[in-house]
């Protein structure tokens, strides 16, 4: 830093920072607008009446603003209102997320920090489960759950999650690998067993990864319709994702306004989860176990 901090120098620095800031916000917001346009269209359409949706497709501002789509959509089917579907989705996504993330963390620790016989084999198996399209395993799985008499319950949806999910296991593994082993060794010297290290050292340090996993898990589970379709028979148990699909019938009449309205509404919880948790991501973690 050569120049002395004169007033003029400070002013110029502030101007440059200001211009940079404006430029930054300009670029980021234009790009952001492009990203979000389709969603804006979705919301706009949800406020249009049935004859306007298809006749004035491109306009973002409805000619005749109406809330009727939301009312129609919320009514659901045959007396089962959307609140029921929301409840089911929350149960499935909420419980499913908690179970999946916690289990995945436990398993990830095992794979990444512990050397044991057969580790590479099981890791390969775990990745392989991601590579077989679900469409061909779904019927054998269905028959299996049918034999156990677990159809039309949430068990087939939640039980498999007790083992964690390959995506999250692998993801958390990568984060754990970013934590220096010296921390583990220090804890071991202090008398911690593997479990102790897990609970006291690793778990606190991978919080951002756990939060990220939770966000993903929640929204993917919220969107999932294949498992609910196959295993849930009674419409009272339907999740939002499944209910939304049941609105559309190409052979008959479809209330697209209601679909848009309820689709938009169904994005809200996922978004709220994201916004609520993202501030934990902001903090980040300090790998400060090695200060000094």
């Amino acid at each position, binding site marked *: 830093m050569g120049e002395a901090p004169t007033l003029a120098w400070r002013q110029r620095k502030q101007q440059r920072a200001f211009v940079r800031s404006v430029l930054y916000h300009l670029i980021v917001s234009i790009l952001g607008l492009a990203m979000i346009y389709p969603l804006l269209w979705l919301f706009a359409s949800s406020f249009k009446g049935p004859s306007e949706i*298809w006749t004035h497709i491109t306009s973002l501002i409805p000619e005749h603003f109406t809330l009727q789509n939301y009312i129609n959509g919320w009514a659901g*089917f045959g007396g089962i209102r959307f609140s029921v579907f929301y409840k089911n989705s929350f149960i499935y996504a909420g419980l499913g997320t908690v179970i999946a993330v916690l289990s995945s963390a436990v398993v990830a620790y095992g794979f990444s920090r512990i050397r044991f016989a057969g580790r590479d084999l099981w890791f390969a198996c775990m990745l392989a489960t991601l590579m077989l399209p679900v469409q061909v395993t779904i*019927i054998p799985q269905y028959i299996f759950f049918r034999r156990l008499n677990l159809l039309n319950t949430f068990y087939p949806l939640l039980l498999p999650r007790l083992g964690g999910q390959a995506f999250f296991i692998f993801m958390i593994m990568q984060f754990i690998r970013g934590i220096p082993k010296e921390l583990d060794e220090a804890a071991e010297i202090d008398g911690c067993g593997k479990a102790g290290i897990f609970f006291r050292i690793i778990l606190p340090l991978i919080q951002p990864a756990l939060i990220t996993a939770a966000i993903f898990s929640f929204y993917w589970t919220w969107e999932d319709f294949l498992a609910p379709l196959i295993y849930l028979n009674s419409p009272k148990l339907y999740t939002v994702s499944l209910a939304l699909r049941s*609105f559309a019938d*190409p*052979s*008959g009449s479809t209330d*697209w306004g209601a679909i848009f309205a309820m689709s938009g509404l169904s994005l809200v919880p996922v978004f709220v989860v994201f916004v609520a948790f993202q501030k934990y991501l902001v903090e980040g973690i300090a790998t400060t176990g090695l200060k000094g």
Partner: protein
Amino acid sequence: MNRNRWPIVLGVVLALSLALSACAPAATPTPQPKPATAAAQPTSAQAQPTTAPTAAQAQQPVELRIVWWGSQDRHDRTIKVINLFMQQHPNIKITYEFVAWADYWTKLATQAAGEGLPDIIQQDYAYIGEYTNRNLLLPLDDYVKSGVINTADVTPAELDGGRVNGKLVAINLGSNSQCWVLDVDAFQKAGVPLPAPDWTWADMEKAAMQIHDKLGIWGMGPGLWDEQIWASLYLSLGQWRYNADGTAIGYTDDTPYVQHLERMLRLEKAGAIVPRAEDVANYYGKSVEAQPIVEGKAAMAYFWSNQIVAVWKAAGENRNFKMVPLPRMEGGKSANYIKPSQFWSIAATSKHPKEAAMFIDFFTNSVEANEILMAERGVPISSKVREALKPKLGKSQAAMFDYVAEVSKTAQPIPPADPPGHNDIVKNVLYPQVADPVAFGQLTPAQGAAVLRKEANAILAKNKK
């Protein structure tokens, strides 16, 4: 506790809880059907008069499962009818399931694989062949004969659609027929006379070109590539596209189809119909409400008659539409036939087929029930029900009823159900290997027809016993 015991305890607890939850409802094989009661019921029904529900109340409680596809409107109406039925038959409890059309066959197939089909199944003409050939649907002739399913007000033609290999396996829920919907105002503006009911393909081409010239819009919307149109060309000549035992293509002359393809290319070149690219881009898989005639972008459209209700609703009640039958081949007869829009079938594994049949009877004949349904699935097959509904119909529904009644007078008998392999042909040959290549200029119409014949025969040959 020693820290090293921790993981062991954790693991064991997890394993135990998993084992417990997995074993809790012990693996029970599906309960065996009770042949005694099932056999007893039809015989007792034969002694009774037809639509008398009170006899059933003396019997034990029965649980039925039912499944259908549709949209919100249909779900609401059907659920109301189910509740009505349960009110009148307190010993019968019906649990219902419904899904979207796009998912229906996935779910049904999965349930069939797991031997868990619901008692009452909504069926479609394209699939009853496949399901019947694997003995998954119960023949209903006995119930009709004994009067459990009363068909006194139904013409045989309307029931025949549900016959496979001579056996009645499905009851028609609403009659449908194909139609051309005309935008009357557009025709008037262009100064083109409305076609007569016995118009030909040449007439259609002429009208489409004229409208395009005068108004600049498309004369005809998408739909000419549809596989049903392929069938209609030959039906108009009195032939069916498949042979009698479904082992090969049924017609020997490819010329009608080749001419049809050439006609479409001519129209596309002149800009008088929706180009195939746009068809796929904008209109494929999109619902009825999104078709160009709704927005006024086309003057004609190809639909099934029950879709007119949705079309009219989306386009606005003030529009003027007219429905006419399909264009015919030169010198041919009407290509229209009455097709059941969908059916109720009973699963062969159903443990209470008689009660299921009673429900189907109720659905078909009860005026009260049909006033709730309001012909949402198509024109009801019972003439008594039709008469009762007439005064209550809206403009588009009345148009639908009148059209079906009119067309029935000159319609052909319904062609046989498509053989196994038909879906394969449509999805894997007709569109991707014939229609698209011809439309995009990769094959000539003659070549396209040749590919269709060769590939379809190869697929159908597997049906040879």
